């Protein structure tokens, strides 16, 4: 399966099988649903943010390995960060997954998200990888839903 080593590697499969922070977080201060009407991926991002810091976050995903892994990795990266840091992270992740230029990987900064850049070769699947991040953005803005359309 050498062709797949870029996308379906162990990190992704592990997050898919056992998503970190994958249970609903109730009560929470911010929450948004993400939906990809094209393939049916559905997820909810829950955030507890009493002040400028995200104390706790979870992402409950029903969907493919890419969307589940992306949501799981997102929660590990966002937890304990300040809003301004998270906003930067969201922009960087979008550039990483969808930007025109081939990204430079910073393993400290991107962590396990680096494993998802393989999705760039599969245009039909990029929205699976960005869905959780769109929902996070909506949740922090106080919106309720995000879609990939």
């Amino acid at each position, binding site marked *: 399966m050498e062709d797949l080593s870029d996308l*379906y590697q162990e990190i992704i499969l592990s997050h898919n099988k056992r998503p970190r922070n994958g249970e609903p977080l109730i009560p929470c201060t911010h929450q948004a649903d993400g939906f990809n009407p094209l*393939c049916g991926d559905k997820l909810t991002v829950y955030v507890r943010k009493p002040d400028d810091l995200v104390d706790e976050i979870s992402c409950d995903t*029903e969907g493919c390995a890419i969307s589940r892994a992306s949501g799981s990795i997102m929660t590990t990266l966002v937890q304990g960060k300040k809003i301004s840091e998270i906003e930067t992270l969201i922009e960087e992740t979008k550039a990483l997954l969808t930007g025109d230029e081939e990204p430079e990987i910073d393993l400290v900064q991107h962590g396990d998200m680096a494993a998802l850049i393989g999705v760039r070769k599969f245009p*039909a699947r990029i929205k699976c990888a960005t869905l959780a991040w769109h929902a996070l953005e909506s949740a922090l803005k106080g919106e309720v839903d995000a879609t990939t359309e």
Partner: protein
Amino acid sequence: MKEDTDLREDFPILSQEVHGKPLIYLDNAATTQKPQAVIDRLSNFLSKENANIHRGVHYLSMNATTLYDEARSSVANFINAESDEEIIFVRGATEAINLVARSFCNEKLEPGDEILITEMEHHANIVPWQLVAGENGARVIPAPITDEGEMDLDQFESLLNERTKLVAFVHVSNALGTINPAKKMVDLAHQKGIPVLLDGAQAVAHQKVDVQDLGCDFYVFSSHKIFGPDGVGVLYGRKELLNKMTPYQGGGDMIEIVSFDGTTFRPSPERFEAGTPNISGAIGLKAAIDYVNDIGWETIHEKESLLKDHAHESLEKNPSIKLVGTAENKVPVVSFTIDSAHPHDIATILDTKGIAVRAGHHCTQPLMKRLGLSATTRASLSFYNTIDEINQLTEALKEISALFES
């Protein structure tokens, strides 16, 4: 009749590589590939015969008109319509259903009326009815299916009542492959005087369709699912119904006399073909029908039933695979799930191996809900597929289930 060993070579697209691997095209329920005969026919028409129809007195226009009329006759013969006037060219099966919803149902429906469909319908045979029902205070009722994906005929019969103004159902299910007992269902509806539309989009490439034998009032299908070009399809309707229906769209070619005091309309089929139609598409469809007739249904059935049985047997040997749709009477459409792997992941990995399948809800969201699934992976076969291609699919699925279960 053609030698069947030659058949695969009739389809130039099948000899290419995808991602460095020979293409294995198992997405025939989405669209079928085109034989050289259809490609050549389109090319020849566009390079030597192109003109608008029904208008010119010049040679090319008269010739194009004849070719277009011949295409209509060819379709009429292909599905055994009583006359050419019962064949209306539209954009595809979806437009044909919308035409019937607008021109046949809209005037008939009153508050409280019902349109009976089934739980296994494609969105194209749900949404047009919902729209027209919603505007008239009527309702769309789904007849239930069994867990195997077959109609529950007793329940279907019990749902037919004096409020039912139309029955519309799929002849062959795109998501399950089920061949419905259409003739029996039409009979049940007709016993109560209810007209019936059959969605034949998935049926026409796999079996002989005889609309008079089926007894249906309307039958719809798309050219691109039977080896013809896309953008053209067929509405068959019984003549006495068609000529009582209001026009679908207004424009040129469908009128008798136009004045600012009012306009009178021509009978079917022109009544429903406003504007310049897809002339080359209709002529390409005729070439596809000629091609299918040339191969013959016997050869198609023989090849497809071998492929279907082999696919079912091979996939069933993998304990991780659950087949979705196990009706007794099926076309070679094999839907399945693997617990550990999402259909989109399966389809992406198969794609890297050159294997084209469809993953998702197959435009049958209510059916997926009924079966308790969000999506399936679907391998849909045609006579030009091979046992070896199915073996490669089977091997790839073994690797995939092992990868996700590890």
